[in-house]
Protein backbone atom coordinates (compact mmCIF):
# COMPACT_ATOMS: atom_id res chain seq x y z
CA UNK A 1 0.00 0.00 0.00
CA UNK A 2 2.80 2.44 0.79
CA UNK A 3 6.54 2.56 0.57
CA UNK A 4 6.54 3.21 4.29
CA UNK A 5 7.82 0.35 6.40
CA UNK A 6 4.92 -0.41 8.69
CA UNK A 7 3.04 -3.70 9.19
CA UNK A 8 0.22 -3.97 6.71
CA UNK A 9 -2.20 -5.80 9.03
CA UNK A 10 -1.98 -3.04 11.61
CA UNK A 11 -2.91 -0.53 8.97
CA UNK A 12 -5.68 -2.81 7.75
CA UNK A 13 -7.32 -2.70 11.17
CA UNK A 14 -7.65 1.06 10.75
CA UNK A 15 -9.58 0.41 7.59
CA UNK A 16 -12.01 -1.81 9.51
CA UNK A 17 -12.97 1.24 11.57
CA UNK A 18 -13.46 3.27 8.39
CA UNK A 19 -10.38 5.34 9.17
CA UNK A 20 -8.39 6.47 6.16
CA UNK A 21 -5.02 4.69 6.40
CA UNK A 22 -3.30 7.50 4.51
CA UNK A 23 -4.08 9.93 7.33
CA UNK A 24 -1.70 7.96 9.52
CA UNK A 25 1.11 7.77 6.97
CA UNK A 26 4.08 10.09 7.29
CA UNK A 27 4.31 12.27 4.21
CA UNK A 28 0.55 12.41 3.78
CA UNK A 29 -1.56 15.38 4.77
CA UNK A 30 -0.51 18.08 7.18
CA UNK A 31 -1.62 16.37 10.41
CA UNK A 32 0.92 15.64 13.11
CA UNK A 33 1.45 11.93 13.68
CA UNK A 34 3.32 9.33 15.61
CA UNK A 35 3.59 5.67 14.68
CA UNK A 36 4.87 3.07 17.04
CA UNK A 37 5.79 -0.44 15.89
CA UNK A 38 5.93 -2.48 19.08
CA UNK A 39 8.48 -0.50 21.08
CA UNK A 40 10.16 1.35 18.22
CA UNK A 41 9.09 4.69 16.82
CA UNK A 42 8.48 4.15 13.12
CA UNK A 43 7.53 7.67 12.22
CA UNK A 44 6.95 11.03 13.78
CA UNK A 45 5.79 14.26 12.16
CA UNK A 46 5.13 17.66 13.64
CA UNK A 47 2.30 20.00 12.75
CA UNK A 48 1.82 23.76 12.93
CA UNK A 49 1.46 24.73 16.57
CA UNK A 50 2.03 21.16 17.71
CA UNK A 51 5.06 19.74 19.43
CA UNK A 52 5.19 15.98 19.23
CA UNK A 53 8.08 14.09 20.77
CA UNK A 54 8.64 10.43 21.46
CA UNK A 55 11.30 8.75 23.55
CA UNK A 56 11.86 5.02 23.48
CA UNK A 57 12.11 3.21 26.80
CA UNK A 58 12.81 -0.52 27.35
CA UNK A 59 9.18 -1.68 27.02
CA UNK A 60 7.62 1.16 25.07
CA UNK A 61 7.68 4.93 24.76
CA UNK A 62 7.00 8.20 26.44
CA UNK A 63 5.12 10.45 24.04
CA UNK A 64 4.75 14.18 24.69
CA UNK A 65 2.23 16.18 22.73
CA UNK A 66 1.79 19.89 23.27
CA UNK A 67 -0.77 21.96 21.41
CA UNK A 68 0.47 25.55 21.62
CA UNK A 69 -1.84 28.28 22.89
CA UNK A 70 -4.40 29.46 20.38
CA UNK A 71 -3.70 26.68 17.90
CA UNK A 72 -6.62 25.49 15.86
CA UNK A 73 -5.72 22.18 14.26
CA UNK A 74 -7.57 21.41 11.04
CA UNK A 75 -6.42 17.82 10.64
CA UNK A 76 -6.49 15.38 13.56
CA UNK A 77 -3.30 14.40 15.32
CA UNK A 78 -2.83 10.70 14.55
CA UNK A 79 -1.30 8.21 16.96
CA UNK A 80 -0.85 4.58 16.04
CA UNK A 81 0.36 2.10 18.62
CA UNK A 82 0.71 -1.19 16.81
CA UNK A 83 2.19 -4.54 17.69
CA UNK A 84 2.51 -7.18 15.03
CA UNK A 85 3.71 -9.93 17.38
CA UNK A 86 1.92 -12.57 19.39
CA UNK A 87 3.57 -11.80 22.70
CA UNK A 88 5.54 -9.09 24.41
CA UNK A 89 4.92 -6.01 26.53
CA UNK A 90 4.17 -2.56 25.19
CA UNK A 91 3.91 0.35 27.61
CA UNK A 92 2.84 3.78 26.48
CA UNK A 93 3.13 6.93 28.53
CA UNK A 94 1.36 9.69 26.61
CA UNK A 95 1.42 13.16 28.13
CA UNK A 96 -0.86 15.53 26.29
CA UNK A 97 -1.14 19.23 26.99
CA UNK A 98 -3.61 21.42 25.15
CA UNK A 99 -2.84 25.01 26.06
CA UNK A 100 -5.58 27.64 26.40
CA UNK A 101 -7.81 28.51 23.44
CA UNK A 102 -6.91 25.47 21.36
CA UNK A 103 -9.10 23.36 19.14
CA UNK A 104 -7.80 19.87 18.36
CA UNK A 105 -8.80 16.33 17.60
CA UNK A 106 -6.58 13.40 18.45
CA UNK A 107 -7.23 10.05 16.78
CA UNK A 108 -5.40 7.18 18.46
CA UNK A 109 -5.40 3.62 17.25
CA UNK A 110 -4.15 0.59 19.19
CA UNK A 111 -3.85 -2.47 16.99
CA UNK A 112 -2.61 -5.93 17.96
CA UNK A 113 -3.78 -8.23 15.15
CA UNK A 114 -1.72 -11.29 16.21
CA UNK A 115 -2.04 -10.92 19.97
CA UNK A 116 -1.78 -14.18 21.88
CA UNK A 117 -0.58 -13.27 25.32
CA UNK A 118 0.46 -9.75 24.35
CA UNK A 119 0.38 -7.10 27.10
CA UNK A 120 -0.42 -3.47 26.32
CA UNK A 121 -0.41 -0.88 29.07
CA UNK A 122 -1.00 2.81 28.89
CA UNK A 123 -0.64 5.51 31.51
CA UNK A 124 -1.99 8.70 30.00
CA UNK A 125 -2.11 12.19 31.42
CA UNK A 126 -4.12 14.85 29.63
CA UNK A 127 -4.14 18.49 30.60
CA UNK A 128 -6.67 20.56 28.70
CA UNK A 129 -6.49 24.27 29.35
CA UNK A 130 -9.20 26.93 29.40
CA UNK A 131 -11.51 27.65 26.46
CA UNK A 132 -10.42 24.57 24.55
CA UNK A 133 -12.26 22.22 22.27
CA UNK A 134 -10.57 18.84 22.56
CA UNK A 135 -11.68 15.52 21.10
CA UNK A 136 -9.85 12.31 21.88
CA UNK A 137 -10.92 9.21 19.98
CA UNK A 138 -9.30 5.86 20.58
CA UNK A 139 -10.09 2.74 18.57
CA UNK A 140 -8.78 -0.67 19.50
CA UNK A 141 -8.33 -3.87 17.52
CA UNK A 142 -6.97 -6.87 19.41
CA UNK A 143 -7.06 -9.53 16.70
CA UNK A 144 -9.34 -12.54 16.51
CA UNK A 145 -7.80 -14.80 19.18
CA UNK A 146 -8.90 -13.04 22.38
CA UNK A 147 -5.19 -13.02 23.14
CA UNK A 148 -4.54 -9.47 24.31
CA UNK A 149 -4.21 -8.17 27.86
CA UNK A 150 -4.89 -4.48 27.72
CA UNK A 151 -4.97 -2.08 30.64
CA UNK A 152 -5.00 1.63 29.89
CA UNK A 153 -5.27 4.16 32.67
CA UNK A 154 -5.99 7.81 31.94
CA UNK A 155 -6.20 11.00 33.99
CA UNK A 156 -7.75 13.97 32.29
CA UNK A 157 -8.03 17.53 33.56
CA UNK A 158 -10.43 19.75 31.65
CA UNK A 159 -10.06 23.49 32.20
CA UNK A 160 -12.67 26.22 32.47
CA UNK A 161 -15.08 26.73 29.57
CA UNK A 162 -13.57 23.81 27.68
CA UNK A 163 -15.35 21.06 25.82
CA UNK A 164 -13.83 17.60 26.03
CA UNK A 165 -15.14 14.67 24.03
CA UNK A 166 -13.79 11.22 24.73
CA UNK A 167 -14.59 8.31 22.40
CA UNK A 168 -13.39 4.80 23.10
CA UNK A 169 -14.25 1.98 20.71
CA UNK A 170 -13.49 -1.69 21.11
CA UNK A 171 -16.04 -3.21 18.81
CA UNK A 172 -14.03 -4.99 16.09
CA UNK A 173 -12.28 -8.31 16.57
CA UNK A 174 -12.08 -9.97 19.97
CA UNK A 175 -11.09 -7.86 22.99
CA UNK A 176 -9.32 -10.47 25.15
CA UNK A 177 -8.79 -9.29 28.72
CA UNK A 178 -9.32 -5.56 28.98
CA UNK A 179 -9.32 -3.37 32.06
CA UNK A 180 -9.65 0.36 31.55
CA UNK A 181 -9.73 3.14 34.12
CA UNK A 182 -10.39 6.75 33.26
CA UNK A 183 -10.69 9.71 35.60
CA UNK A 184 -11.88 12.98 34.15
CA UNK A 185 -11.91 16.17 36.21
CA UNK A 186 -14.19 18.91 34.91
CA UNK A 187 -13.62 22.53 35.89
CA UNK A 188 -15.93 25.55 35.81
CA UNK A 189 -18.35 25.72 32.83
CA UNK A 190 -16.68 22.79 31.13
CA UNK A 191 -18.58 20.19 29.14
CA UNK A 192 -17.61 16.52 29.06
CA UNK A 193 -19.01 13.96 26.66
CA UNK A 194 -17.62 10.49 27.07
CA UNK A 195 -18.73 7.63 24.83
CA UNK A 196 -17.54 4.10 25.53
CA UNK A 197 -18.37 1.13 23.30
CA UNK A 198 -17.22 -2.46 23.65
CA UNK A 199 -18.20 -5.90 22.36
CA UNK A 200 -17.16 -9.15 24.07
CA UNK A 201 -17.51 -12.00 21.63
CA UNK A 202 -16.56 -15.24 23.36
CA UNK A 203 -15.79 -16.80 26.72
CA UNK A 204 -12.19 -15.60 26.59
CA UNK A 205 -13.26 -11.99 26.34
CA UNK A 206 -13.53 -10.01 29.55
CA UNK A 207 -13.93 -6.24 29.32
CA UNK A 208 -14.07 -4.05 32.40
CA UNK A 209 -14.28 -0.34 31.92
CA UNK A 210 -14.45 2.22 34.68
CA UNK A 211 -15.03 5.76 33.48
CA UNK A 212 -15.32 8.39 36.21
CA UNK A 213 -16.23 12.02 35.72
CA UNK A 214 -15.78 14.45 38.59
CA UNK A 215 -17.66 17.68 38.15
CA UNK A 216 -15.45 19.93 40.23
CA UNK A 217 -16.23 23.35 38.76
CA UNK A 218 -19.37 25.43 38.96
CA UNK A 219 -21.81 24.73 36.15
CA UNK A 220 -19.71 21.87 34.75
CA UNK A 221 -21.78 19.42 32.71
CA UNK A 222 -21.27 15.86 31.53
CA UNK A 223 -22.89 12.99 29.72
CA UNK A 224 -21.32 9.57 30.01
CA UNK A 225 -22.67 6.93 27.63
CA UNK A 226 -21.45 3.36 28.00
CA UNK A 227 -22.69 0.83 25.48
CA UNK A 228 -21.75 -2.81 25.24
CA UNK A 229 -22.74 -6.19 23.94
CA UNK A 230 -21.59 -9.64 25.05
CA UNK A 231 -22.10 -12.81 23.08
CA UNK A 232 -21.18 -16.49 23.29
CA UNK A 233 -19.81 -16.35 26.82
CA UNK A 234 -18.22 -12.91 26.64
CA UNK A 235 -18.26 -10.70 29.71
CA UNK A 236 -18.52 -6.93 29.94
CA UNK A 237 -18.64 -4.71 32.99
CA UNK A 238 -19.31 -1.02 32.57
CA UNK A 239 -18.73 1.05 35.66
CA UNK A 240 -19.86 4.61 35.01
CA UNK A 241 -19.24 7.14 37.73
CA UNK A 242 -20.26 10.77 37.95
CA UNK A 243 -19.85 12.99 40.96
CA UNK A 244 -21.41 16.41 41.32
CA UNK A 245 -19.11 18.33 43.61
CA UNK A 246 -19.74 21.93 42.58
CA UNK A 247 -22.64 24.39 42.44
CA UNK A 248 -25.11 23.92 39.58
CA UNK A 249 -23.13 21.17 37.94
CA UNK A 250 -25.11 18.59 36.01
CA UNK A 251 -24.17 15.05 35.01
CA UNK A 252 -25.81 12.01 33.51
CA UNK A 253 -24.68 8.40 33.18
CA UNK A 254 -26.27 6.03 30.70
CA UNK A 255 -25.39 2.33 30.45
CA UNK A 256 -26.94 0.11 27.76
CA UNK A 257 -25.80 -3.47 27.39
CA UNK A 258 -27.10 -6.36 25.34
CA UNK A 259 -26.61 -10.01 26.21
CA UNK A 260 -26.54 -12.54 23.38
CA UNK A 261 -26.36 -16.29 23.88
CA UNK A 262 -26.07 -18.36 27.01
CA UNK A 263 -23.10 -17.81 29.30
CA UNK A 264 -22.62 -14.20 28.30
CA UNK A 265 -22.65 -11.63 31.07
CA UNK A 266 -23.22 -7.91 31.00
CA UNK A 267 -22.97 -5.88 34.14
CA UNK A 268 -23.58 -2.18 34.56
CA UNK A 269 -22.77 -0.14 37.62
CA UNK A 270 -23.80 3.43 37.21
CA UNK A 271 -22.58 5.17 40.33
CA UNK A 272 -23.60 8.73 41.06
CA UNK A 273 -22.75 10.94 43.98
CA UNK A 274 -23.58 14.55 44.79
CA UNK A 275 -21.94 16.66 47.44
CA UNK A 276 -23.36 20.02 46.45
CA UNK A 277 -27.05 20.77 47.10
CA UNK A 278 -27.42 22.64 43.82
CA UNK A 279 -25.88 19.89 41.71
CA UNK A 280 -27.90 17.41 39.66
CA UNK A 281 -26.69 13.96 38.70
CA UNK A 282 -28.79 11.19 37.15
CA UNK A 283 -28.35 7.74 35.67
CA UNK A 284 -30.14 5.11 33.65
CA UNK A 285 -29.18 1.56 32.84
CA UNK A 286 -30.69 -1.16 30.72
CA UNK A 287 -29.38 -4.68 30.27
CA UNK A 288 -30.55 -7.79 28.49
CA UNK A 289 -32.19 -7.79 25.11
CA UNK A 290 -33.42 -5.05 22.81
CA UNK A 291 -37.00 -3.88 23.38
CA UNK A 292 -39.46 -6.20 21.61
CA UNK A 293 -41.04 -3.20 19.89
CA UNK A 294 -37.74 -2.38 18.17
CA UNK A 295 -37.43 -5.96 16.97
CA UNK A 296 -41.06 -5.96 15.78
CA UNK A 297 -40.49 -2.79 13.80
CA UNK A 298 -37.50 -4.22 11.99
CA UNK A 299 -39.14 -7.61 11.48
CA UNK A 300 -42.14 -5.85 9.93
CA UNK A 301 -39.66 -4.79 7.26
CA UNK A 302 -38.83 -8.40 6.45
CA UNK A 303 -35.85 -9.04 8.75
CA UNK A 304 -35.55 -12.13 10.90
CA UNK A 305 -35.12 -11.61 14.64
CA UNK A 306 -31.42 -12.46 14.32
CA UNK A 307 -30.92 -9.98 11.48
CA UNK A 308 -32.82 -7.31 13.39
CA UNK A 309 -30.63 -7.89 16.46
CA UNK A 310 -27.45 -7.58 14.37
CA UNK A 311 -28.66 -4.29 12.90
CA UNK A 312 -29.46 -2.96 16.37
CA UNK A 313 -26.08 -4.00 17.79
CA UNK A 314 -24.31 -2.32 14.89
CA UNK A 315 -26.33 0.84 15.53
CA UNK A 316 -25.70 0.76 19.27
CA UNK A 317 -21.95 0.38 18.85
CA UNK A 318 -21.62 2.80 15.94
CA UNK A 319 -19.08 5.52 16.57
Amino acid at each position, binding site marked *: MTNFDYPEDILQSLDDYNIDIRDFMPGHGSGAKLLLNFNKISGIEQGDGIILKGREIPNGIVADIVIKEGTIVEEPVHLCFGVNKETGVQEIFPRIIAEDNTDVKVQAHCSFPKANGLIHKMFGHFYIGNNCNFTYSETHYHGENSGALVSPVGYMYVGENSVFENNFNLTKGTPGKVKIMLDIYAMKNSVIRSNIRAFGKNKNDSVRIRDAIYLEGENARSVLKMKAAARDGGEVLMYGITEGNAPHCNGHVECSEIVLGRGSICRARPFIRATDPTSSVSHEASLGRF*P*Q*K*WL*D*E*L*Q*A*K*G*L*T*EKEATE*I*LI*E*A*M*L*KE
Partner: protein
Amino acid sequence: MLLELENVSIPTIDQKHIIVNNISFGVKESSIHAIIGPNGSGKSTLAYTIMGLKTYKPSEGKIYFDGIDITDMPITERAKSGITLAWQEPARIEGLSISKYIALGIKDKKNAEALIKEALEVVNLEPELYLQRDIDDTLSGGERKRVELAAVIAMRPKLIILDEPDSGLDVIVTEDFLNIFNKIKILNMTILLITHREDIGMVADYGTLLWRGEAVMTDKFPKVMVRYCAKAGLKEFCRRTLFKNGEKCFDDDYIERIFREESSQ
Protein backbone atom coordinates in the same frame (compact mmCIF):
# COMPACT_ATOMS: atom_id res chain seq x y z
CA MET B 1 -60.10 -9.10 -1.58
CA LEU B 2 -56.47 -8.53 -0.72
CA LEU B 3 -57.04 -9.05 2.99
CA GLU B 4 -59.85 -11.00 4.58
CA LEU B 5 -60.64 -11.59 8.22
CA GLU B 6 -63.03 -14.43 8.96
CA ASN B 7 -64.61 -14.62 12.43
CA VAL B 8 -61.43 -13.42 14.12
CA SER B 9 -61.29 -13.12 17.91
CA ILE B 10 -58.22 -11.77 19.68
CA PRO B 11 -57.62 -12.30 23.40
CA THR B 12 -55.49 -10.30 25.82
CA ILE B 13 -51.91 -11.52 26.30
CA ASP B 14 -52.95 -13.46 29.42
CA GLN B 15 -55.82 -15.02 27.39
CA LYS B 16 -58.31 -14.03 30.09
CA HIS B 17 -60.34 -11.51 28.10
CA ILE B 18 -61.36 -10.98 24.49
CA ILE B 19 -60.32 -7.64 22.98
CA VAL B 20 -61.68 -8.19 19.47
CA ASN B 21 -64.67 -10.48 19.16
CA ASN B 22 -65.61 -12.51 16.10
CA ILE B 23 -65.01 -9.90 13.42
CA SER B 24 -65.13 -10.39 9.68
CA PHE B 25 -64.39 -7.93 6.91
CA GLY B 26 -62.39 -7.63 3.71
CA VAL B 27 -60.03 -5.03 2.27
CA LYS B 28 -60.14 -4.46 -1.48
CA GLU B 29 -56.92 -4.22 -3.45
CA SER B 30 -55.69 -0.65 -4.19
CA SER B 31 -58.19 0.90 -1.80
CA ILE B 32 -57.84 2.92 1.37
CA HIS B 33 -59.79 1.12 4.06
CA ALA B 34 -60.18 2.80 7.44
CA ILE B 35 -60.75 1.03 10.72
CA ILE B 36 -62.50 3.58 12.86
CA GLY B 37 -63.62 3.47 16.44
CA PRO B 38 -63.12 5.10 19.81
CA ASN B 39 -60.05 4.62 22.02
CA GLY B 40 -59.95 1.13 23.45
CA SER B 41 -62.13 -0.43 20.76
CA GLY B 42 -59.35 -2.80 19.64
CA LYS B 43 -58.06 -1.01 16.53
CA SER B 44 -54.34 -1.24 17.30
CA THR B 45 -54.75 -4.81 18.56
CA LEU B 46 -56.28 -5.67 15.22
CA ALA B 47 -53.41 -3.95 13.37
CA TYR B 48 -50.74 -5.84 15.34
CA THR B 49 -52.57 -9.13 14.82
CA ILE B 50 -52.75 -8.63 11.06
CA MET B 51 -49.03 -7.78 11.08
CA GLY B 52 -48.33 -10.94 13.10
CA LEU B 53 -46.65 -9.62 16.24
CA LYS B 54 -45.64 -12.43 18.58
CA THR B 55 -47.99 -11.50 21.43
CA TYR B 56 -51.04 -10.84 19.24
CA LYS B 57 -52.56 -14.09 18.01
CA PRO B 58 -56.18 -14.83 17.19
CA SER B 59 -57.81 -17.38 19.47
CA GLU B 60 -60.36 -18.07 16.75
CA GLY B 61 -60.86 -17.33 13.08
CA LYS B 62 -58.68 -17.01 10.02
CA ILE B 63 -56.75 -14.24 8.29
CA TYR B 64 -56.22 -14.49 4.54
CA PHE B 65 -53.82 -12.33 2.57
CA ASP B 66 -53.75 -12.53 -1.20
CA GLY B 67 -55.74 -15.75 -0.97
CA ILE B 68 -53.31 -17.44 1.44
CA ASP B 69 -54.08 -18.34 5.05
CA ILE B 70 -51.55 -16.32 7.09
CA THR B 71 -53.13 -16.90 10.51
CA ASP B 72 -50.08 -18.78 11.80
CA MET B 73 -47.47 -17.08 9.63
CA PRO B 74 -44.64 -15.29 11.55
CA ILE B 75 -44.17 -11.53 11.22
CA THR B 76 -41.05 -11.76 9.03
CA GLU B 77 -42.81 -14.00 6.52
CA ARG B 78 -45.84 -11.73 6.45
CA ALA B 79 -43.57 -8.77 5.72
CA LYS B 80 -41.87 -10.71 2.95
CA SER B 81 -45.24 -11.61 1.46
CA GLY B 82 -46.19 -7.94 1.22
CA ILE B 83 -47.69 -6.69 4.51
CA THR B 84 -46.07 -4.01 6.60
CA LEU B 85 -47.00 -1.62 9.36
CA ALA B 86 -46.13 2.00 10.09
CA TRP B 87 -46.17 2.36 13.86
CA GLN B 88 -48.11 4.95 15.79
CA GLU B 89 -44.96 5.90 17.67
CA PRO B 90 -41.99 4.48 15.80
CA ALA B 91 -38.84 3.76 17.78
CA ARG B 92 -35.92 6.15 17.89
CA ILE B 93 -32.66 4.29 17.50
CA GLU B 94 -29.36 6.09 17.94
CA GLY B 95 -26.75 5.01 15.42
CA LEU B 96 -29.19 3.83 12.75
CA SER B 97 -29.19 6.23 9.82
CA ILE B 98 -32.34 7.10 7.92
CA SER B 99 -30.85 5.78 4.68
CA LYS B 100 -29.98 2.45 6.26
CA TYR B 101 -33.35 2.21 8.00
CA ILE B 102 -35.31 2.82 4.83
CA ALA B 103 -33.07 0.39 2.92
CA LEU B 104 -33.84 -2.47 5.34
CA GLY B 105 -37.10 -3.44 3.68
CA ILE B 106 -36.10 -2.85 0.06
CA LYS B 107 -35.98 -6.07 -1.94
CA ASP B 108 -34.56 -4.48 -5.08
CA LYS B 109 -31.14 -3.74 -3.56
CA LYS B 110 -29.67 -2.61 -6.92
CA ASN B 111 -32.07 0.32 -7.03
CA ALA B 112 -32.09 0.95 -3.30
CA GLU B 113 -30.59 4.44 -3.53
CA ALA B 114 -33.22 5.64 -6.00
CA LEU B 115 -36.05 4.03 -4.04
CA ILE B 116 -34.89 5.63 -0.79
CA LYS B 117 -34.74 9.09 -2.38
CA GLU B 118 -38.11 8.64 -4.03
CA ALA B 119 -39.72 7.51 -0.77
CA LEU B 120 -38.32 10.52 1.10
CA GLU B 121 -39.66 12.82 -1.59
CA VAL B 122 -43.12 11.22 -1.37
CA VAL B 123 -43.24 12.11 2.34
CA ASN B 124 -41.91 15.62 1.64
CA LEU B 125 -38.48 15.23 3.22
CA GLU B 126 -35.50 16.51 1.27
CA PRO B 127 -33.14 13.52 0.81
CA GLU B 128 -29.95 15.56 1.06
CA LEU B 129 -31.00 16.89 4.45
CA TYR B 130 -32.11 13.59 5.93
CA LEU B 131 -30.22 10.64 4.42
CA GLN B 132 -27.31 10.75 6.85
CA ARG B 133 -29.27 11.64 9.96
CA ASP B 134 -30.15 8.97 12.50
CA ILE B 135 -33.68 7.93 13.46
CA ASP B 136 -32.99 9.24 16.95
CA ASP B 137 -34.29 11.91 19.31
CA THR B 138 -33.05 14.72 17.08
CA LEU B 139 -36.01 14.13 14.75
CA SER B 140 -39.32 15.76 15.63
CA GLY B 141 -42.41 13.58 16.03
CA GLY B 142 -43.65 14.57 12.58
CA GLU B 143 -40.26 13.93 10.96
CA ARG B 144 -40.00 10.48 12.55
CA LYS B 145 -43.47 9.55 11.32
CA ARG B 146 -42.58 10.71 7.81
CA VAL B 147 -39.42 8.60 7.88
CA GLU B 148 -41.55 5.63 8.95
CA LEU B 149 -43.88 6.22 6.04
CA ALA B 150 -40.90 6.53 3.69
CA ALA B 151 -39.55 3.21 4.98
CA VAL B 152 -42.80 1.37 4.29
CA ILE B 153 -43.28 3.06 0.91
CA ALA B 154 -39.77 2.05 -0.18
CA MET B 155 -40.63 -1.59 0.59
CA ARG B 156 -43.33 -1.47 -2.08
CA PRO B 157 -45.61 -3.74 -0.06
CA LYS B 158 -49.05 -4.77 -1.23
CA LEU B 159 -50.64 -3.67 2.05
CA ILE B 160 -49.57 -0.88 4.40
CA ILE B 161 -51.16 -0.79 7.83
CA LEU B 162 -51.03 2.77 9.15
CA ASP B 163 -51.60 2.81 12.89
CA GLU B 164 -52.94 6.22 13.98
CA PRO B 165 -50.67 8.13 11.58
CA ASP B 166 -52.13 11.41 12.78
CA SER B 167 -51.44 11.02 16.51
CA GLY B 168 -49.45 13.90 17.94
CA LEU B 169 -49.50 15.93 14.73
CA ASP B 170 -50.87 19.44 14.28
CA VAL B 171 -53.56 20.35 11.75
CA ILE B 172 -51.22 21.53 8.99
CA VAL B 173 -49.08 18.41 9.20
CA THR B 174 -52.22 16.25 9.23
CA GLU B 175 -53.36 17.85 5.98
CA ASP B 176 -49.99 17.05 4.46
CA PHE B 177 -50.31 13.45 5.59
CA LEU B 178 -53.64 13.10 3.78
CA ASN B 179 -51.88 14.12 0.57
CA ILE B 180 -49.19 11.53 1.27
CA PHE B 181 -51.83 8.78 1.63
CA ASN B 182 -53.18 9.67 -1.79
CA LYS B 183 -49.67 9.49 -3.23
CA ILE B 184 -49.27 6.01 -1.71
CA LYS B 185 -52.54 4.96 -3.33
CA ILE B 186 -51.28 6.17 -6.71
CA LEU B 187 -48.27 3.90 -6.23
CA ASN B 188 -50.81 1.04 -6.23
CA MET B 189 -50.47 0.07 -2.60
CA THR B 190 -53.45 -0.76 -0.43
CA ILE B 191 -53.79 1.09 2.87
CA LEU B 192 -55.44 -0.17 6.02
CA LEU B 193 -55.81 3.02 8.01
CA ILE B 194 -56.30 2.81 11.76
CA THR B 195 -57.74 6.04 13.13
CA HIS B 196 -60.30 7.50 15.48
CA ARG B 197 -60.60 10.78 13.59
CA GLU B 198 -63.21 11.43 10.94
CA ASP B 199 -61.09 14.03 9.08
CA ILE B 200 -58.33 11.48 8.59
CA GLY B 201 -60.77 8.72 7.74
CA MET B 202 -62.45 10.80 5.03
CA VAL B 203 -59.53 10.01 2.75
CA ALA B 204 -60.67 6.36 2.84
CA ASP B 205 -62.79 4.61 0.26
CA TYR B 206 -64.20 2.11 2.72
CA GLY B 207 -64.39 1.72 6.43
CA THR B 208 -65.08 -0.71 9.21
CA LEU B 209 -66.51 0.53 12.47
CA LEU B 210 -65.06 -1.17 15.51
CA TRP B 211 -67.13 -0.67 18.62
CA ARG B 212 -66.26 -2.36 21.91
CA GLY B 213 -64.30 -5.02 20.09
CA GLU B 214 -66.95 -5.85 17.51
CA ALA B 215 -67.14 -4.92 13.84
CA VAL B 216 -70.45 -3.09 13.63
CA MET B 217 -70.40 -2.46 9.89
CA THR B 218 -68.20 -2.35 6.82
CA ASP B 219 -69.24 -0.05 3.98
CA LYS B 220 -68.24 3.11 2.13
CA PHE B 221 -66.48 5.30 4.66
CA PRO B 222 -68.99 8.18 5.03
CA LYS B 223 -71.78 5.69 5.84
CA VAL B 224 -69.59 4.04 8.45
CA MET B 225 -68.84 7.46 9.89
CA VAL B 226 -72.53 8.33 10.25
CA ARG B 227 -73.05 5.09 12.16
CA TYR B 228 -70.05 5.92 14.36
CA CYS B 229 -71.52 9.35 15.15
CA ALA B 230 -74.91 7.80 15.86
CA LYS B 231 -73.40 5.31 18.28
CA ALA B 232 -71.48 8.09 20.01
CA GLY B 233 -74.52 10.45 20.00
CA LEU B 234 -72.76 13.16 18.00
CA LYS B 235 -75.48 14.44 15.66
CA GLU B 236 -74.29 18.04 15.32
CA PHE B 237 -70.74 16.90 14.81
CA CYS B 238 -71.97 14.53 12.11
CA ARG B 239 -73.87 17.28 10.27
CA ARG B 240 -70.95 19.67 10.54
CA THR B 241 -68.13 17.43 9.44
CA LEU B 242 -69.28 14.85 6.90
CA PHE B 243 -68.24 16.57 3.71
CA LYS B 244 -66.31 15.16 0.80
CA ASN B 245 -64.81 17.45 -1.85
CA GLY B 246 -66.78 20.33 -0.35
CA GLU B 247 -70.12 18.54 -0.76
CA LYS B 248 -72.27 17.28 2.07
CA CYS B 249 -72.15 13.49 2.08
CA PHE B 250 -75.73 13.03 3.31
CA ASP B 251 -78.87 15.04 3.72
CA ASP B 252 -80.29 15.62 7.18
CA ASP B 253 -83.09 13.05 6.71
CA TYR B 254 -80.59 10.26 6.21
CA ILE B 255 -78.64 11.29 9.30
CA GLU B 256 -81.87 11.52 11.34
CA ARG B 257 -82.88 8.01 10.22
CA ILE B 258 -79.56 6.44 11.21
CA PHE B 259 -79.63 8.15 14.59
CA ARG B 260 -83.20 6.92 15.16
CA GLU B 261 -82.20 3.39 14.23
CA GLU B 262 -79.31 3.50 16.60
CA SER B 263 -81.29 4.89 19.51
CA SER B 264 -83.98 2.23 19.04
CA GLN B 265 -81.44 -0.58 19.44
